[in-house]
């Protein structure tokens, strides 16, 4: 019985907290946020509706365009390719960005500025330019292969690193790292390191203090960054087109071709719809998984 009370208390009080914050600030904030909310309604919802309505409205209501997508197994394959590519790129990006963002927290201010510059500079570089640079580096007679075969003699035959999925992933990860690091760092550096220190003093080795305390505390950052990266990676078309192979076709590429080559609004809109629904489902699954691991961890 006691337990039940306490548990209910927890649940209820979580709710309570947001309500509280709500009330104590609401009168203050309303006038501040009104322009934003109005803008949101007008600027986000309206264009969206117009756009998406194109997918089932073409001189009358029609499911023609969706039918076209569903009828062709190749488009469904593209959906799958896009999703897989996005998830892989997101995973690679987060795995690389997270340690870098931690390192940024620990580094001195000078070192931090330096690394920040390193990270951000490529981000300013045009995506086409970067793709060509990657080709030059990764191709069969590119820098890396030449180095590995001729200089070190580590391998006999060049490794295929571009015009295939790895190539796309390298390019995408490279593109996605700066925003991921930026977000992770911005959020993580608010973490109270004294709490991590407390874990250390209670007997946690650095890695366990990291795993049990720092990592959970940095989840908001991870979540935000993953979200952004996933969304960005679902929309790529230049990188898969330039660094990918014949089969690395994404929905965005498809839309792009559709719009530049054949100016077919409706079909493009329908594909956009598919991409959108897919992303929503993906994010839903991600949060589901997240809440499960969280629930599982708590005693």
């Amino acid at each position: 019985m006691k337990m039940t009370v306490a548990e209910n208390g927890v649940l209820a009080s979580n709710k309570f907290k947001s309500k509280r914050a709500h009330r104590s600030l609401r009168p203050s904030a309303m006038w501040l946020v009104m322009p934003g909310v109005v803008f949101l309604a007008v600027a986000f919802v309206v264009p969206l509706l117009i756009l998406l309505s194109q997918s089932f409205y073409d001189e009358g209501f029609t499911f023609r365009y969706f039918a076209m997508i569903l009828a062709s197994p190749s488009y469904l394959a593209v959906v799958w390719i896009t999703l897989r590519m996005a998830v892989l790129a997101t995973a690679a990006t987060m795995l690389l960005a997270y340690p870098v963002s931690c390192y940024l927290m620990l580094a001195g201010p000078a070192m931090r500025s330096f690394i920040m510059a390193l990270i951000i500079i490529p981000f300013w570089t045009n995506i086409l330019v970067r793709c060509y640079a990657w080709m030059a580096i990764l191709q069969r007679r590119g820098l890396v292969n030449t180095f590995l075969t001729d200089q070190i003699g580590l391998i006999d035959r060049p490794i295929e690193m571009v015009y295939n999925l790895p190539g796309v992933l390298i390019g995408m990860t490279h593109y996605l790292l700066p925003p991921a690091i930026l977000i992770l760092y911005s959020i993580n550096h608010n973490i109270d390191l004294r709490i991590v220190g407390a874990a250390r003093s209670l007997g946690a080795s650095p890695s366990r203090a990291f795993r049990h305390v720092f990592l959970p505390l940095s989840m908001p950052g991870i979540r935000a960054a993953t979200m952004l990266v996933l969304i960005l990676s679902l929309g790529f078309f230049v990188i898969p087109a330039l660094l990918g192979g014949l089969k690395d076709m994404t929905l965005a590429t498809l839309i792009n071709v559709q719009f530049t080559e054949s100016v077919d609004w409706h079909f493009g809109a329908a594909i956009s719809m598919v991409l959108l629904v897919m992303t929503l489902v993906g994010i839903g699954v991600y949060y589901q998984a997240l809440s499960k691991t969280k629930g599982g961890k708590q005693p």
Partner: protein
Amino acid sequence: QETVVFAGFGGSIMAAQRKVYFDAFEKETGIKVIDVPDSGLPKIKAMVNSGNVQWDVANTLGMYVHQGIKENLWEKLDQKVVGAAGIPKELRNDYGIGNAAYGQILAYNTKLSGGVNAPKTWADFWNVSGKAGPRGLFDGPRYILEFALMADGVAPKDLYPLDVDRAFASLDKIKSKVSIWWKQWPQVPILLSSGEINMSNMSNARIQDIVATEKVPLEIVWNQGLMTVDWLVVPRGAKNPANAMKLIAFMSRPDLQAKFAQATNIGPVNADSISLMSAEEQQKLPSVHYKNGEMGLVDDAWWAENSDKMIQRWDSWKLK
């Protein structure tokens, strides 16, 4: 001041257009030419539909001229002003006029595939075990279907209407053997000269350009090439239609087209231009090789009709 807005493809082509056509036009007529890059059918369509047309003359693919006619995107040309008798019938109509000819050809690296290994036909390209070396092809149906048919034995003059099934069947044979299915044209001269690939389809001007500037060992196979033509049109509702007609007429002049061809190796459309050039210069132009019967002419009307279907089929084929 009077102006006329010209929407082109940007880059080196437009730089040459500026040098050859626009500067001269400004001098001669006093009308200022504003050149903007990134001409594309979607934007034209959006502009025409919105009634706010920014461009007076647009440089566009022949295929789009036909599509635009169907969608009523163009002003009728004022044939009295445009004139240009030297431009053949098949390369002009009420709404547009051909302006520049490109050769879609097979290019190869002579150092890697020279001598006996040099390809002479698309069949050679398809014959991977016979003429070894990594190949590149454009990732898209346009021109590639034609090449596939020629590789399968169809003569250039018998291409249209394309036997699509046969073309894809032919493509199946080489699908896994092409090492790079490229998407961006400027990639290819670099890939060829660095030896990433030995041969690929390409446009003649890009190859000739890189050979001239970088002295790389690249060679063009004109035989079984295709000629494509870029057209000039006036978007409907253009703000300076009169000036647009004047500019089109100016750009159709044989002397200037010859000058342009000398600068870029992009072929003149005006038949009278050819004679204004040396024999050596002529050999570099698709227009000449087309006339010689080595090359076929892309059927823009067919493509305007079938492009969407072909793209979809291409996408499906890719993923098979």
